[in-house]
């Protein structure tokens, strides 16, 4: 028997936290053109109000639209608008599917297994993601809740093992960095905080309130980001600037008993996070594009999206080193600006205008 999926606020919080933490855990200068510095951990501590501000347009829209997704609301305003919004957000979720997968593939093919083809890991990740989409939203969120606990505990374990290697002389004051460094760090963190995308699509499906979950995420996630940046700097110091994947390198020097390093744990956390993110993004992408797909073609939508995402992720991972525009900060800030701020506010304004028109137009008496 089918029913509207119900996700707990706790599950949503766990997913948002996992999504954001994994992105920072897998920080690379290749992706961000920025080496980790003292302003990064300070920016992480200052992040909460900015995360809350980032979600304001989404909550303004929700107040106007009620517990429906952004695409459903756009359709309720007008069909052409609904189609345009669905297409835009579908493309946005497609980007969110390709982004973590291609980064992971780049990591593995450049660091761990250079002999593997760039197609291999996108395939390895997106096939299970397609299966996860078939299983549905609830299953993905339930699994994400478990994965988030596992990943965050692993992260804390790595940090705990690295504590003896913390060198206080590696921690420099962030207040003497060049002017604008703190602002740049904040912008970088914000450009990677794309969790509001999920919030826009799930308002009606969360039992216990989206606001509570997002508030929890906005307060707790920055603490983990701080922990990651601080650990990298404290352990590696200036060596982090030479490393493509600093946290992975730091985990590589964590020795526990006979285990020579915990880099496998860091890589495992990465792939689990990517799996959870790509599954949900693919599901939401499909959800956005489903109304635009002819009925006969709907059974093929998921395989088509999966295949397209695999191809794009493989291409992106193979060209990541050369392609400077690849998910750079200006591009991601643009995405944030359009999808998370401009579009929700525009829809809210259009909704208000429609409401006002209904109020002004006198009711025509029935004959």
């Amino acid at each position, binding site marked *: 028997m089918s029913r509207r999926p119900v996700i707990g606020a706790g*599950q949503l919080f766990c997913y948002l936290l996992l999504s954001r933490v994994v992105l920072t855990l897998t920080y690379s200068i290749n992706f961000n053109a920025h080496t980790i510095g003292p302003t990064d951990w300070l920016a992480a501590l200052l992040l909460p109000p900015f995360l809350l501000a980032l979600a304001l347009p989404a909550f303004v829209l929700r107040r106007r639209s009620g517990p429906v997704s952004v695409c459903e609301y756009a359709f309720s305003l007008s069909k052409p608008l609904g189609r345009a919004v669905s297409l835009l957000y579908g493309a946005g979720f497609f980007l969110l599917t390709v982004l973590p997968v291609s980064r992971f593939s780049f990591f593995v093919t450049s660091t761990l297994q250079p002999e593997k083809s760039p197609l291999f*890991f996108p395939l390895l990740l997106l096939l299970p993601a397609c299966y996860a989409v078939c*299983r549905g939203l609830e299953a993905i969120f339930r*699994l994400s809740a478990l994965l988030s606990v596992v990943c965050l505990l692993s992260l804390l374990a790595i940090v705990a093992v690295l504590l003896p290697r913390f060198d206080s002389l590696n921690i420099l004051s962030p207040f003497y960095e060049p002017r604008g460094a703190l602002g740049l760090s904040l912008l970088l963190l914000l450009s990677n905080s794309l969790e509001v995308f999920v919030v826009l699509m799930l308002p009606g499906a969360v039992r216990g309130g989206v606001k509570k979950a997002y508030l929890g995420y906005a307060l707790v996630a920055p603490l983990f980001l701080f922990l990651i940046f601080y650990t990298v700097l404290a352990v590696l110091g200036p060596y982090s600037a030479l490393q493509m994947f600093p946290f992975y390198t730091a985990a590589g020097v964590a020795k526990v008993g006979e285990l020579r390093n915990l880099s496998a744990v860091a*890589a495992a956390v990465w792939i689990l996070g990517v799996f959870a993110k790509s599954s949900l993004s693919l599901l939401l992408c499909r959800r956005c594009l489903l109304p635009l797909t002819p009925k006969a073609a709907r059974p093929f939508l998921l395989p088509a999206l999966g295949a397209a995402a695999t191809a794009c992720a493989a291409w992106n991972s193979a060209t990541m080193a050369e392609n400077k525009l690849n998910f750079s900060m200006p591009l991601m800030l643009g995405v944030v600006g359009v999808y998370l701020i401009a579009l929700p506010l525009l829809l809210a304004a259009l909704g208000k205008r429609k409401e006002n028109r209904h109020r002004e137009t006198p009711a025509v008496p029935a004959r």
Partner: protein
Amino acid sequence: MNAVTFLRQFFHTARQQQYADPQKPPEPLSKNLQENITRVKEAYGNSDDLTVRELTVQNRRFACLALDNMVSKDDLNKMLLEKLTAAPRLPTDAEECFSFIERSLSTAPEQQRAETVDELPTLLASGFALLLLDGCAVALALGVQHFPARGVEAPRNEEMERAAHEAFVEVLRLNVALLRRRMKTPALRVENLTVGGRSKTAAAICYLQGSASPKVVDFVRRRLQRIEIDAVLESGYLQPFLESRPLSLFPTVGATERPDAACAKLCEGRVAVLVDGTPFCLIAPTLFCEHFQSMDDYTLHPAFATFVRLLKYFSFFMAIVFPGLYVAIGENNPEIFPTAVFFKLVDAEVTTPFSLMWEALMIHTIYEIMREAGLRLPQSVGHAVSIVGALVIGESAVSAGLIGAPMIIVVAVTALSSYVIPTLYYPVAILRFAMILVGGIAGLFGVILLFSLVLLEIASLEFCSIPIFAPFLPFDRTAMRDAVVRAGWPTLARHTARVQALHGAGEEDR
């Protein structure tokens, strides 16, 4: 409620399945005795085990039909035939005579009327004796069952240290009695039904009124009523029809041969399905965490019970993941091993001609063949299997350099781990092979992803909107007191556990 009404409800077969053309109306009995006898004989194709005893008492013709070895002849004699032949005066009217015999003469504790020809074979096969009366279009079925059946013995598959040593048997009525003996509350409901178009197997849905969710009971009832199958010879035949996803590796409907376990599950709001002819009772729904619970857990000290459960979870993880992990790390990420282990691994594998993945697949296949052979072989020959296994596979394969010694250890640990949770043996066995394949091809990442998929699959399973992975996912703090840890009885007794009240089940407000 008096005894007669109770017995009537107990044997009421109002929900009989009609396997024959449902459009064909049931054929009523004739008033002619000979015609009725002929019809029954024709239905049985003149089978030799159908006994027909015709007798004439006070100028009225009677016929007593029964299947050989299905009835107690002594009881039939004492409760009916002797009384019939010694009856002082029988009413002359056939209908009145029938009523007189039914109400005053027969002393059988169970009896019922049958008015159609189609009911007769079912009653005969259920061990009833039929009394037909010339001039009356009704048959009297007397419950004088006495067919060969196994007595109540100790469970063979679910042995416990301290819990009761009683298991279900093949006789449905006895199994119901075993439940009644433990659950003396009248809230225990038993609904009889017939499944199997040809076998007309008796089944019973049991639940506790007030504990079980009406939605779940109704779901089970409807699913069973809709089954179209020739013969139901074991409860396992019905299991896929109750499953929400029959093709999933992990079951949502479990089975138990222990009456005490069945009663415990009934108290938690589950529904039990007993099937005649099989000692295994189906329990719906069965949560994933129940595979790691046993009756002994509730008799042992909580600390030890918790330790045993943790061991089971660890064993489950090892049974699925260990071989795949070994192959993945050995082939793709050997730097994870400490140096000493690393060199031992290299030394062991240097002489073997196969890669770790093929070694693992071969040795596990051989192990499964041995296990299956051990199950099917007669006991006297069973020792040969262990000798072949130990010497040939364990010793010779390693000496010949076909398999590395570490791989044998991996197989041994995996095999032992998989037997800790016997109810999950088959899914674990299949997943183990999948893990080995994935570990060999995709390495550590493949193993991690496949394990995540396994968890996803379990997390997505539901039975009547009850999540099977509860109380882990969705997390239910209260219910966790009996999932991984086993809280003390004072704590367990404080809250009544109901499976439909778990988080995510949709009925948690009840």
